[in-house]
């Protein structure tokens, strides 16, 4: 089923919308959730919550990119769930490493302006991503948006794992410089 047809189902409040979303994007959302939560039950819960949020959001929203729209919801819900857990140890084995890598972007003697909103920061990150070569941007998104392991990324792009790690390291370094220059890290 085409995305436009799926969205029509949401707009006509037809409950088949959820069934069809599950058929088309169930695995995709599950993978995102599992990358973050590493737990079947929690991941399934996140994915089911995703359908509910989508049902409540469309209409009025009419996403131009349904995959990204659903993926974003799953990612947010899964991260929220993870943060509500007592410790990261319940997350995927990969997740603490990803968190640690992101922490490296903010030097230990600095922090992010706490008054800042994620939306504002994302505008700056978009500017940063726009300047990156395609393959670096894709690798960055696979790691820090999808929380994929470096091994999976290396398979996806036919790079060696060490190359993926090097790309990520260099991109993080660039991001730190970018955020410092834009005044977001203080």
């Amino acid at each position, binding site marked *: 089923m085409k995305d436009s047809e799926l969205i029509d189902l949401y707009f006509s409040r037809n409950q088949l919308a959820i069934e069809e979303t599950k058929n088309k994007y169930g695995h995709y959302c599950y993978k995102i959730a599992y990358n973050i939560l590493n737990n079947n039950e929690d991941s399934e819960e996140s994915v089911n919550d995703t359908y509910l949020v989508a049902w409540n959001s469309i209409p009025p929203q009419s996403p131009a990119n349904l995959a990204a729209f659903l993926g974003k919801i799953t990612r947010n819900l899964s991260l929220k769930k993870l943060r509500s857990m007592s410790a990261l140890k319940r997350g995927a084995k990969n997740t603490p490493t990803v*968190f640690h890598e992101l*922490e490296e972007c903010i030097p230990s003697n600095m922090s992010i302006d706490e008054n800042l909103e*994620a*939306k504002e920061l994302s505008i700056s990150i*978009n500017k940063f991503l726009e300047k990156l070569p395609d393959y670096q941007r894709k690798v960055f*998104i696979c790691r820090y*948006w999808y929380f994929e392991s470096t091994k999976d990324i290396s398979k996806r*792009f*036919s790079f060696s794992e060490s190359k993926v790690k090097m790309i990520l390291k260099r991109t993080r370094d660039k991001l730190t410089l970018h955020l410092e220059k834009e005044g977001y890290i203080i």
Partner: protein
Amino acid sequence: MKTDLLQDAIGLVKEEYITEAFSKNKRTSKTVIIASAISLAACICIIAVWCLNSNKETAENIIWSDTKTKIEFSEDNGLVGNIDDNLNSAMKNATDDVYACVITSFDDYKLTADDYYRIEQLRQKLSDEESKLSIAAENCANDLVASKGISLAEAHMRIYTQPDFKKAREDYINAKKEYNYANLIAQSDIRKDEIEHLKSLGFKLLIDVSDEKYTAYFSAFHNVLGIFTATKDQILSLKDDTNYRLYGANKNAEKFTFGDYFSDFELELCEDCKLTKKLKEVYENNPEEEVTVNITFGYFGKEYTTQEIDALAYEAIGMTKEEFEQSATMEIVNRFTEIRNNLIWHADYYENLARKYLTNSEYIELTAYSGSATAKLTYKRALELCNYNDIAYISIKDEQTVGIYTDIKLGFDE
């Protein structure tokens, strides 16, 4: 946790970035880069010929101390401060005191509204040419497959000579030049300031990248200032200046090979056989020796639809789709993914070909997702294998690197 905000912000990046990252990547199945994968803004890579030998060393986290300055270098993923691994190795190993380096700057360039509008139009034109190039590449490859009965993988390697592709490539390069040049000119004032600053530190400008003939190779969005010559002391004086990145080699390198990722196909085949030109050169210099090569197979098997692949994968794990969705454990999900990937990559097909054409002593390993096998072959055996239609082409192992690099001979007049 202080990264929460950063995670949330990354969660809000443009949707196109989210979908493009997860979309099927042509490189995974073809081991070639099609021009559509060209990136506009590319890191400048400088690879001196001898540096290829030093890569192994630098990957091992060497810590060394410069004898003259006593500065200690600890390598982390190839970067030492803001100096890249090649230049770092050059300074470590070479006795010369003069080096050449490309310097990029992290200064922000503010564009006027007029410049922005003009550059945006050129960006759009470049993007259109990229699409045309990609379409021409696919059409030429398909024509070759139909007319010569060769595999798609071999067709991709032979595409350079096709008129439609050559024309599309030329148009793309011109659009790229226009775009890069417009960027460089729009930023010329600040670039001049930066270059003057470096000159005041003793750096000598060897190549000004705003010279039109170089603009196809540099992307202004990565703020390349130019190629400079400098002494080791001068280079080290910038070691901790995070405004710059330095990439380079010593003067004994004789030439730099540099370029950005404005690439087409990375490997070039000989006209009379399926060996890459580089591999043939290696064999001609050592005709009796075994060389570790990458053999890319052609695919002439059945093309499965996604539905067929899913059906076969469900059958292989002995579950229906509904059962899988309701009760699959992570172990089953992983098994399902593995089976599915093997079907997508035609792993069995390529494994059979590797077994058919390679002896046990020749065979090293199979890389299913790129449809290729690594093996040790003599020149005679490699030429023999070229005769089989199932073999698409044979290259040196790891011959393909990202990007096309253009040689520039350096003139050291010191």
